[in-house]
């Protein structure tokens, strides 16, 4: 861990106000923020780990547990809400058999919600990894995941 992070942290040493940028960088690299990484960041930036925990727990972007291979983000914006986004989210939960912010036991999918992805004209919208899917209905969900899994089989 130490070695992995040393290069990453080097450009930020001695700078003020970089905690959030450093955490973003480390999370991008490791996928989440494990305890050891937090200690290492604290040592490098000379900030108490408690303060870093404070920042991590404040911002919803930061995670201290690993996530699935695919991130399913369901938009909970107003436009999505009035066009039935809640029912779409419920159906995804049923389909994957997990709740919000949980990961399937096989570490394939994590469900997250996002305040608004800004694709309101496509409401209700959702995103799997980088792909945006618009005008969703609960009925479209089962097929979507079947297609997703098949698509992966073809890539392999």
């Amino acid at each position, binding site marked *: 861990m130490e070695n992995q992070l040393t290069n990453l942290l080097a450009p930020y040493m001695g700078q*003020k*106000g*970089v*905690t*959030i*940028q450093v*955490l*973003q960088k480390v999370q991008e690299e490791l996928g989440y923020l494990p305890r050891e990484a937090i200690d290492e960041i604290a040592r490098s930036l000379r900030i108490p780990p408690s303060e870093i925990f*404070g*920042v991590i727990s*404040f*911002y*919803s*972007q*930061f995670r201290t547990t690993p996530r699935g291979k695919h991130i399913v983000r369901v938009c*909970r*914006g*107003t*436009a*999505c*809400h*009035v*066009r*039935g986004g809640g*029912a779409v989210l*419920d*159906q995804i939960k*049923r389909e994957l058999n997990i709740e919000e912010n949980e990961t399937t036991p096989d570490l394939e999918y994590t469900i997250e919600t*996002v*305040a*608004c*992805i*800004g*694709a*309101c*004209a*496509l*409401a209700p*919208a959702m995103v799997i990894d980088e*792909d*945006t*899917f*618009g005008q969703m*209905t*609960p*009925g479209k*969900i*089962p097929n979507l995941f079947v297609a997703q899994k098949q698509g992966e089989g073809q890539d392999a």
Partner: protein
Amino acid sequence: MPDHENPSEQSDGKRSILICQALGCLSSHSDRIQTAIEAEISQLELADSVNVKLTGCPGLCQEGPIVLIEPEGTFYARVKPEDAPDIAQSMLPDGQVVERLLYHGDDGQPIRNYADIPYYVKQQHIVLRNCGHINPEEIDDYIAVSGYEALKKVLADMAPEQVVEEVTKSGIRGRGGAGFPAGRKWAEARKSTKEPKYVICNADEGDPGAFMDRSTLESDPHTVIEGMIIAGYAIGSDTGYIYVRAEYPLAIKRLKIALKQAEGRGLLGDNILGSGFSFTLQIREGAGAFVCGEASALMYSIEGKRGMPRVKPPRSVESGLWGLPTSLNNVKTFASVPVIILRGADWYAGIGTPNSTGTAVFALTGKIVNSGLIEVPMGMTLREIIFDIGGGLIGGKEFKAVQTGGPSGGCLPASALDLPVDFDSLNEAGSIMGSGGMVVVDEDTCMVDLARYFLEFTQEESCGKCVPCRIGTELVLEILDRITNGEGKPGDIELLEEYGDVIAKGSLCGLGKSAPNPVLSTIKYFRDEYEAHINEKRCPAGACRALTSFYINPEACRACMLCFESCPVEAVDGWLRTIHIVLQEKCIKCGSCYDVCPSLYNAIVKVPVIEVPQPPMPGTKVPRKKRSKC
């Protein structure tokens, strides 16, 4: 005709095929359309006379992916990669317009020029002037439409005080929502004697249902950068930050490209254009906290801390980032500055209403025909915006309310439709201008549920620093949860009003102060809906799932199987020629069946849970004369 120039009419005399690649169209894979068209154009050997380029958002997202042909202004809607050969053919000297791809008006007639589409006719583009017309990833495109001319003018001919004076005279009020006069903010930041000073662009657009800032950054990042450099010169600052939500990766990518290009041209950095003035810009990505849209919280976040607002005064123009004078403005404010400088304060002040000059940008969404981004002069009525530009409600349903200002705003009913939209009139009516989200709802939306939705949002996003907001929003949400679950009690409405008053008066920052707005405005205009939930355990809109069931009217059902196939949980029983039945114990009330039932039959109805009629026996056949053909 909308008052916007045709920026793509470039001097090289080439015609252009412009392909929107802002988030909306890109999610429909408009990048593949570009690849396909490029291939066709080179095959037809048209590359010398035709430019193919990506652009930002022309606004009418509902009709995306959008392709524009300029200089003619031909507007192609819902384009697919398969349409590439036809579009390329149309660019031949004797090519014909591809009629089937044109936008069709209400009368079914194709409209050839985008400026004649009703959606655009009443708009006036200042902030969005280049959106959809230039390639946001090419600085030369921006320069070709007078880009950075305002900066040159300012550096060569104007003293910083004159710039502040010009912005003040234009009357522009901050486009982030609160509407503080931008010129006054700049003047105060300039007056402050502490150094260094900072310029911050607030692009932490967090309101659900709003995407004006995202679209502007994705479509025309240079105009925001130019506005910020001018602000730096005006207040005497050499450092700026753009604080963008991490949820906007495309905007961040294009901003980074734009910054690099501007640095390469000597428009950013030391001694800009030989004027002796230096200015650097950095991007800071947010980390997922709505409250960071509040100025003081945003500055703490840039400092790497928890983004919690502080008590004011001192205001940030005296003590902002790192305790130093800081002028923070919204994306749209900065985007307006170059135009104000080039065309003059008097021109700008002549648009809109006396106290709210200029234009307003809205993200028009919800149950509306033309979802998308619009820009109109201040003072236009809600009716013109929703019906003339927005095209009215989907399926011709009845207008019920419009929500402006997101979680800080309120809901306005049909009686407010003739209200002219500006900062003051919306405030008086119990809503706010906000940063520009405008969500239209119809009879199927429950106003209590909508208020509950917003309170759930603010409760979750409350930073927890002050008690009225932290505990107050929790208490209000608890009551709204009960009411929408059919457990409301007499006296709940009065309690909501009381709590709302305390939260509004006692909270530290704008998030808390405005949090009760959605509740108070819906009580004000839709009190009967609250009463129906509480007293009759009935949701008039049929939206609250705990109070509503779906029922198939056996008289109307033609056993067409559409609802049977759409149900994700097999809660519809029936078969061909057999009347369908909703199995209430299995039904999750997702509404899929309701949405697919052909309007010709309208067999599926929403009924209060307590009044679900007895369905027919399973296996009951559709009477022969009524049998469906499909």
